């Protein structure tokens, strides 16, 4: 069960209170009525599904009710930061980034790379 920092409640809270809300910073086109089928498919269906650093939205649905953004490593499931909705994509703090990368390596046991217990 994840522990998630809500930028509105300014506190770490249990995943139980949150609902994941998909990739962050997917902008709904202003002129949505006018876009092509391809553009619509891209907007509505295609997601990055990153292995590694991902930007995603969560809603503190059973807390303050706010949607917000998070940067998380999808290999270690570690959160690198969270920030309020409406803010542009935030760069990941450098120290955290290194931790994430180091961790990505050490966590690979969960990816069944055999014979690699060191």
């Amino acid at each position, binding site marked *: 069960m994840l522990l998630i920092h809500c930028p*509105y*409640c*300014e*506190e770490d*809270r*249990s995943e*139980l*209170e949150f609902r994941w809300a998909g990739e962050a910073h997917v902008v709904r086109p202003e002129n949505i009525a006018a876009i092509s089928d391809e553009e619509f498919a891209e907007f509505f269906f295609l997601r990055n599904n990153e292995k590694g650093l991902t930007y995603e939205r969560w809603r503190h649905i*059973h*807390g*303050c*009710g*706010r949607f917000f953004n998070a940067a998380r490593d999808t290999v270690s499931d570690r959160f690198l930061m969270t920030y309020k909705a409406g803010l542009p994509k935030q760069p990941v703090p450098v120290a955290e980034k290194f931790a994430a990368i180091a961790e990505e390596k050490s966590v690979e046991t969960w990816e069944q790379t055999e014979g690699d217990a060191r």
Partner: protein
Amino acid sequence: MAELGPDIATRSLPLSGVHGGSAKVRLEPAQPAERINLRVRAEDVAALSAALGLDLPVKPKMSSSANGRTALWVGPDEWLVFADGGGSIGSSLTQAAASSGAVHSATDISHRNTAILVSGPGAAATLNAGCALDLSLDAFPIGACSRTLFGKVEIVLLRTAENAFRVEVWRSFSDYAFALLAEGARDAAL
């Protein structure tokens, strides 16, 4: 029309008649209260505070009380405001809010919610049977409040004293909440 009985409908409370608890915890339904869900933008908080006669808390997890009214911070632009003795008809809170003149939303939820009072030395443990919040006094001091989950239902929790909490819950979830509190209370007494 006399054969219709009393002109004014009588009120039946969701948890009327239930009681419970254990050696260390008392569980009881709260008195009916008047409640609103209040929404206003930051720039208008002061106006609403003035109109309601209490300072709307602007820090997470904080509550404030004055003049028989209590406001709980629920979200950055959302408060649960309740006033005791909401047995009467008509909403003094919505009217008061309206008098602010500021843009806001005040929606009557007096009957949507009901409340359960949990008190006694095992109160926090009782709640922690189904609530994942840290209810130590450091993390959740007197006056702290939060919307959260209790087992499978959503509640708004307010700590009214070291060993006393108020659990606001939607009425159709109140049987569940009470039954789970009763289980928690039984265990907290061991």
